[in-house]
């Protein structure tokens, strides 16, 4: 930067003043030059040496890797009914560092839409993190209400969430997904990898407003949608199982219960129902997600006697009509070393045939017979039936159950196992064993996945019936079937007897283990059966845990549920009904000829009975009001109506209320709390409010007759917010 003219200047004579000026100007010049140098040095530092650092910061600002979320595969029932699909929800996330400045405004807006306290949002926005979820899975219409443009640092994203079309139907089988859309139970968990597909991504450019546009130059990977799964579950049967189980639990005031239905020839699971039920769209209790049919074991009690009977008949230690003394209900066995064991029978018997001992469920006879069979043979038979080993069904968390080796048996084990104690079985193992008997002694592997289709709908897996082994020779199997049919014909299961259909089955009552001890008055009551005996189409297990009302026996607690389910199936149009109706029609030729039927008189019948009577005549029932007994019916008895018509049944409690001058509860669902309260108050009902927001449900249901002044409970949910799942 030297001045090229400087030397020439110096030749001119300068005054001191000029010299002073020159130096001063030089100082100013050098100050400027220094500043230029500083700026250039800084530019070199930023643009040359540190440019990589800033480029990556910039890239982070301009580019966003936006996931292309693969659609999770649907789950269908065997007939193609959609059980689970996806729906779009909108989630909001924020960068507290940017959004923190407007925290109050943002919190206010969110709070106005969701009804949650503002504080919840402001505390999120005070986080030190750069990413927080503000709200997840809002319904799109609710998300529209959030004025995103006013909010710096808040982003909106669409998220798919599982939509379970039938809430709690088959809840434990289908299973739930967590908030990240990952299956955590049931089929959702078992097939998570195939259902979820593979997420893709696209790199987007974004500007300071957070707007994004896809960039063609950037890499992009398309999402591959998940495979769909078709179950062997029949939605119709499943619904029947769920409904009847729920009703049965209410009647017996039991803690829990379960129903399993299986097709014996193939091993297809038709229904699996657990109670307490779980609403998959709103999982409240993670424990309820457990599918106890495969994950819990219990001592089966008398239903296990088929093992003893099969072993005894196959080894020809008894015959069906061999008389055995049943000790009049009390039998004390003495084991070596002066150890005694008292066995009781619920039905005291004296001399009975082996067949009758099954029909009346004699523990004493089974214990005596087991001594004739011997440890090894009984153990082998139990093993052959599949006990002590997981069935391998496509469901998570299946357990093996417990069948001790004979070397671990105590002196009493042989006798205990003979009538179903000292073994731990899963309900599925029991169903599987009975379906072997229903299937001429051939054990099938139970399965629940009928088909897996890839993202293009191409079938890539088909569930096939799989034979495991022949458990008993066919002729012996026929004898076991005879014994089970006797149970229903004249034994402990006589309550399920149904005209026109041959049913075989077995009751079972076992004491419940609670903390390693048998708890007084705590029982598992089961009934398992199949029909029609000549060509079994379905095996149904009903198990009730700890019934408290109406008796704890399998015959009293579970058999009525079995009966209700069987009645509905027999009268329904399902796969079974076709054969049933064909057989019935042979019996009732006149009824089949004309399409009209005469309505039977069902007044003064119990509700179950009344429905069964109507169903048998090919009529449907509509129950109006509450109560156990039918007091009136419409159309009246004797009226000729078309087959399949609806008969309205007025229940006893309804009638009382009408007499007392009660009104019908208005429908307030979907109203705001204030409107609902006003409306109910106008009709002179009291109101109990649960929650806040919009009325989602009400109890009693709209249209129910109720006395004036009675209380209506309304269950409210925050406006337009889907309650987040537990996870």
């Amino acid at each position, binding site marked *: 930067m030297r001045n090229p003219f400087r030397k020439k200047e110096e030749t001119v004579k300068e005054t001191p003043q000029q010299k002073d000026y020159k130096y*001063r100007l030089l100082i100013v010049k050098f100050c400027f030059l220094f*500043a*230029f140098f*500083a700026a250039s040095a800084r530019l070199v530092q930023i643009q040359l040496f*540190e440019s990589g650092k800033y480029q990556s910061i*910039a890239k982070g600002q301009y580019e966003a890797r936006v996931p292309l979320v693969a659609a999770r595969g649907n789950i269908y029932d065997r007939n193609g009914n959609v059980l689970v699909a996806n729906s779009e929800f909108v989630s909001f996330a924020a960068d507290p560092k940017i959004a923190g400045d407007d925290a109050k405004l943002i919190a206010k807006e969110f709070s106005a839409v969701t009804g949650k306290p503002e504080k919840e949002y402001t505390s999120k926005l005070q986080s030190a993190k750069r990413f927080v979820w503000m709200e997840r899975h809002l319904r799109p219409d609710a998300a529209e209400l959030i004025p995103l443009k006013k909010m710096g640092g808040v982003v909106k994203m669409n998220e798919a969430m599982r939509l379970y079309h039938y809430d709690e139907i088959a809840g434990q089988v289908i299973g739930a997904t967590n908030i990240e859309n990952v299956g955590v139970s049931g089929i959702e968990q078992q097939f998570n990898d195939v259902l979820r597909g593979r997420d893709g991504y696209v790199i987007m450019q974004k500007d*300071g407003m957070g707007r994004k546009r896809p960039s063609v130059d950037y890499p992009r990977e398309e999402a591959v949608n998940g495979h769909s799964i078709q179950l062997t579950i029949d939605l119709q049967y499943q619904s029947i199982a769920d409904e009847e189980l729920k009703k049965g639990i209410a009647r017996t005031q039991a803690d829990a219960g379960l129903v399993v239905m299986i097709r014996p020839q193939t091993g297809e699971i038709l229904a699996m129902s657990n109670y307490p039920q779980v609403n998959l769209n709103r999982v409240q209790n993670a424990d309820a997600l457990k599918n106890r049919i495969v994950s819990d074991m219990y001592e089966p009690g008398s239903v296990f006697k088929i093992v003893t009977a099969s072993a005894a008949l196959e080894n020809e230690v008894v015959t069906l009509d061999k008389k055995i003394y049943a000790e009049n209900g009390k039998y004390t066995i003495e084991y070596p070393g002066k150890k005694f064991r008292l066995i009781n029978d619920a039905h005291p018997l004296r001399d009975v045939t082996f067949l009758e001992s099954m029909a009346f469920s004699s523990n004493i006879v089974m214990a005596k017979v087991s001594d004739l069979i011997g440890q090894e043979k009984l153990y082998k038979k139990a093993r052959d039936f599949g006990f002590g080993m997981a069935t391998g069904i496509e469901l998570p968390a299946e357990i093996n159950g417990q069948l001790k080796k004979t070397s671990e048996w105590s002196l009493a084990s042989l006798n205990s196992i003979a009538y179903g104690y000292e073994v731990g079985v899963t309900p599925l193992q029991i169903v599987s064993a009975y379906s072997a008997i229903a299937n001429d002694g051939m054990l099938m592997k139970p399965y629940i996945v009928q088909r897996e289709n890839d993202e293009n709908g191409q079938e890539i897996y088909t569930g096939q019936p799989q034979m495991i082994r022949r458990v008993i020779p066919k002729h012996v199997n026929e004898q076991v079937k005879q014994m089970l049919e006797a149970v229903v014909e004249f034994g402990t299961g006589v309550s399920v007897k149904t005209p026109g259909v041959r049913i075989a089955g077995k009751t079972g009552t076992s004491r419940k283990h609670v903390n390693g001890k048998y708890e007084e008055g705590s029982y598992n009551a089961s009934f398992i059966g199949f029909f029609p005996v000549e060509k079994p189409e379905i095996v149904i297990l009903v198990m009730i845990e700890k019934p408290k009302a109406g008796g704890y026996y399998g015959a009293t607690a579970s058999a009525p549920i079995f009966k209700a389910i069987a009645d509905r199936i027999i009268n329904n149009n399902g796969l079974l009904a076709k054969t049933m109706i064909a057989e019935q029609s042979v019996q009732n030729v006149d009824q089949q000829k004309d399409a009209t039927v005469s309505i039977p008189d069902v007044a003064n019948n119990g509700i179950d009975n009344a429905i069964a009577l109507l169903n048998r005549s090919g009529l449907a029932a509509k129950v109006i009001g509450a109560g156990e007994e039918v007091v009136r019916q419409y159309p009246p008895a004797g009226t000729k109506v078309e087959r399949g018509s609806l008969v309205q049944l007025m229940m006893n409690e309804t009638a009382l209320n009408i007499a007392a001058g009660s009104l019908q509860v208005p429908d307030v669902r979907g109203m705001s709390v204030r409107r609902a309260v006003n409306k109910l108050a106008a009709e002179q009902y009291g109101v109990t409010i649960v929650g806040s927001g919009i009325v989602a449900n009400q109890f009693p249901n709209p249209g129910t007759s109720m006395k004036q002044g009675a209380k209506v409970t309304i269950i409210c949910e925050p406006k337009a917010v889907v309650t987040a799942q537990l996870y």
Partner: protein
Amino acid sequence: MASEKNHIDRITLFVVLILMVASTVVVYSASSTWAMQKMQSSSGLVNKHITKILAGLVVMFFAINMDYKRYKPLTKWVLMVSILLLFATRVLGGEVKGAARWLSVGGFSLQPSEIAKFALLFHLAYLLSNKREKLADFKTGFMPLMIWIGLVVLLVMVQPNFSTGSMIFALGMILVFVGGARIKHVMISLAGLVPALLVYMVSAPYRMKRILSYVGFGSDETVTSTANYQLLQGIIGFGNGGIFGVGMGQSKQRDLFLPESYGDFIFSIVGEEYGLIGTIIFIGLFLTILLRGLKIAKYAPDDFGKYLAIGITSTIVLYAIANALVTLGLMPTTGVPMPFVSYGGTAIIFSSFAVGVLLNISSQTDLHPRERQFIEQPTLKVEPAVGKIY
């Protein structure tokens, strides 16, 4: 005056014209997104900018052809009028971001501080040329100058426009220093500024924050002022450009990451789009103005011309370098535009006028015969490169 045109310093003119052309390109790129959003036209802002540049060229042409000596008798009166305007702004001016800086005259907004700056500059040049001998004396020489400077600076600062005030103060001190004031007096004046600075810092929280964050107190978490955000985004812009830049019109920072990127932070957009090469060329252009301006001063026919040339050169270079240092984070964030480049309304017209005067001075020097040698100066090598980029 055709003969005089041959004498003007063509290099300075050329550099200024390059800056003007470059500014339209950069302002367009920097403002298009913003203009699209606010004015529904991506060229909305740049059109205004071009209008100002054209007006500036007309004014420059006028100034080139106007003998600078004819301003001599006017300087005092113009300065007094501009001081009155500053008063008027304080009373009538519109508030822009908490500061009354603009005066609207017939729909045309004026920045009186800009007028006052140049008026002060002219008058100081006049005073220095007339009373240089007396300047060493505090009472008769130094004080009268300082009173003018102090008055203008005070009025600008109370607008409040601290940055322009201090820039004017710095310019005044440069002239006074070069003019021969005693070092002692200059030091006293600078020391007098320290309490004023402190009062200013404390009087507005945003200033305090800016300065604190500049000095390094208060982390990013506590001082999340817009200024800091702007500064960080500005530096990211430079860094993102790297050596070669992301290319013309490809800036991402301008898309609203960097607020007002077309204004005080335009240098960052230059850095992002044209890289280190672009920024060094811009630095080189202003360096050329510095060197040429001082050369013109050296050969100015009289003292008035000499001091005027120094004042004009200093103004433009001081603003340019201050702007660069601010955007690079080497100086506390203040609103200083980059002359000829930033979108900034009337400032361009005044700067053009000033350059016109400088060129008129150059036309009256003996530079002409030596001109060929200047062309061979090393600093000028940058110019062909400029041609390539645009």
